[in-house]
């Protein structure tokens, strides 16, 4: 399928249902159903489900731009997570539940903070040797107490509705690839907003974007944005059964870049950027959330470095060609 044929209707749908005002409402606990139903009706939740199981049968590389769009619009619902969960469930022959599905990628079976769990009915949880779909009982998700944060503390003790075999690298590797794409989409939007602002904001009699000091910082921001985009595309190209080293590369790069990108966006905007009513914070808060979700740069560089030192070719270029590139 042509890339634009897929992305355009999806982006158009998000433009209508995920405006900054509607995103704020969902964060405040209202209107998640309306936004979610629009996503359900679009049909995209089964984009990664095989065609013979009733889905679009698309690859992760095809769907990567959709993940980026979710990041770009700061969508506060687990759309990408649910797409991945439904594909894994369908592949494992399990029935597909209604509603949003969160991903719990730690192997804890007690309590865990699960991203976006407060708007989910189910969690697909990694048990270390298998994946289990469990229901979130009414009232069983506890608010984290962070403003606008839809993560929740969830008990993972519940009985399994479905049990699946665990992909290589577990759920965390594929979730990390999703995060890298979300970061990439939000980062690109931040670069546009920040460049536009720098061209409009006048101080000392000229747009601040004419100052070399700002230009140099924005150039570095662009480098981070492109590095995140291309490493994320590399990881998406490896597919749902993502190679661990490829996922590690993408998330390590995206997480390290996310913090720098958020910093530069705020530094250029000045005080207006930290005000609630300005849209910048919708994106920078997401960057920090996704940076930490499913392993930060410190986690993934550790995984990648251990793999590099364990075995494989002696030369780094050879090693990277064999382990990171598809």
């Amino acid at each position, binding site marked *: 399928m042509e890339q634009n044929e897929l992305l355009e209707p999806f982006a158009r749908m998000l433009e209508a249902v995920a405006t900054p005002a509607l995103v704020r409402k969902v964060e405040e606990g209202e209107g998640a159903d309306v936004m979610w139903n629009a996503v359900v009706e679009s049909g995209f939740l089964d984009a990664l489900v095989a065609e013979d199981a009733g889905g679009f049968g698309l690859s992760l590389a095809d769907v990567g731009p959709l993940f980026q769009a979710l990041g770009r619009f700061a969508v506060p619902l687990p759309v990408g997570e649910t797409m991945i969960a439904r594909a894994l469930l369908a592949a494992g022959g399990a029935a597909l539940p209604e509603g949003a599905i969160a991903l719990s990628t730690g192997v804890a079976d007690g309590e865990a903070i699960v991203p976006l769990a407060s708007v989910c009915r189910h969690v697909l949880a990694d048990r270390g040797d298998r994946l289990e779909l469990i229901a979130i009982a009414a009232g069983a998700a506890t608010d984290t107490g962070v403003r606008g944060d839809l993560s929740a503390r969830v008990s993972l003790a519940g009985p399994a509705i479905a049990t699946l075999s665990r992909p290589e690298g577990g759920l965390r590797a594929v979730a990390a690839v999703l995060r890298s794409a979300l970061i990439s989409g939000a980062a*690109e939007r931040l*670069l*546009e907003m920040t*460049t536009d602002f*720098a*061209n409009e904001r006048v101080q000392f009699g000229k747009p601040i*974007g*004419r100052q*070399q000091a*700002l*230009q*140099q910082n*924005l*150039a*570095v921001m*662009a*480098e981070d*944005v*492109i*590095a995140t*985009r*291309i*490493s994320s*595309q*590399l990881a998406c*190209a490896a597919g749902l059964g993502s190679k661990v080293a490829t996922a*590690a*590369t993408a998330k*390590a*790069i995206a997480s*390290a870049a996310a913090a720098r990108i958020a910093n530069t966006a705020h530094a250029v905007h000045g005080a207006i950027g930290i005000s609630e009513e300005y849209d910048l914070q919708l994106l920078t808060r997401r960057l920090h959330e996704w940076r930490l979700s499913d392993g930060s*740069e*410190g986690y*993934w*560089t*550790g*995984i*990648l*470095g*251990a793999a*590099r*030192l364990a075995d494989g070719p*002696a*030369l*780094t*270029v*050879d*090693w*990277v060609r064999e382990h*990171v*590139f598809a």
Partner: protein
Amino acid sequence: MFDTFNLAQLPAEDEAIRPAIRKLVEDATAATPADIRARSWLGFSREFSLRLGAEGFLGLTLPKRYGGQERGPFARFVVVEELLQFGAPVAGHWIADRQSAPLILHYGTDEQRDFYIPRVCKGEFLFCIGMSEPNAGSDLASVRTRAERTDKGWVVNGQKIWTTISMHADYMIALVRTSGTPDDRHKGLSQLIIPLKAPGVTVKPIIDLTGDAHFAEVFFENVELGADALVGQEGEGWKQVTAELAFERSGPERVYSSVVLLDAWVRHLKAVGRTDSATTALVGQYTARLATLRAMSIACTARLVAGESPVVEASLVKDLGTSFEQDLPIAIGDDLAAHPDEPVDAELYRTLKFVTHIAPSYSLRGGTREILRGIIARGLGLR
């Protein structure tokens, strides 16, 4: 932004030449210690350049009718990647193959193409770049070297400096002023091919801080050239140089300059069996950055394949690439000295010191960090 700058794959037919170049490079470098291989594309061997030419590994992007292989930038990427990861001595033909021959192909006359390009493809004609002058570094438009028209052609007076491999090269493509004054900036500049054996040319090598002499000063005193020394149009030198610099900045050589040190360090870590979390995170960080830069470099090569001149993309890759290349010796130095009781072999020690000392040049040659970031800022619409 930069919507066409996306992941690209090396085509299978270009990957297919890897085993052949690899065998040649492995044989040629097997006995060379890491600190010599770490010279990367500053290591010179005319014999090696001739051998690459004889075996068809030069002129990969150039047409067959001029002795090239007509394979394109992806094939060149594969060959260059193998040459650089082993630290083969490629300085001799590097500039001729990467930018001089493509420049002559694009802007030269039929006679110039027939004369120069086949010999570049054989590794026989080595070129250097005559851009920098004592008072024209980043501000290249202020060049003062002059060429005056005569009955027979041109007479050149002036000086170039920091000219890599000029002491070994056969020709220089020099950016010179052919009309006006330095105040005319981008106007009145032209590119001339100057044979470095011509009367009136003096080349004085400059010793660098590592003790090597990879660059030199080149003086021109009434150097007489034929009318056919001009490449492209008189007065179009600035436009031609800009296109040439995109070739210079877009290759994987801007990513792999210190990769021989990275490999020597990993070999050391494996030998001493160090696997603590600080070590694995550091190795992982540099592995992730290298993998990403490789993907970005292939993405940039894809723009060359599409027939574009990816000036902004190349600047992005080069700035990020040289940051990686420069951070590496600092991080490895810290890591090794943070484990003072670990034995470090003499070869790794020399490699680390060499790369540490030469690394500042990585973000000077081919356009400084600040100039590149200015180009990126312009690409963002900021100036």
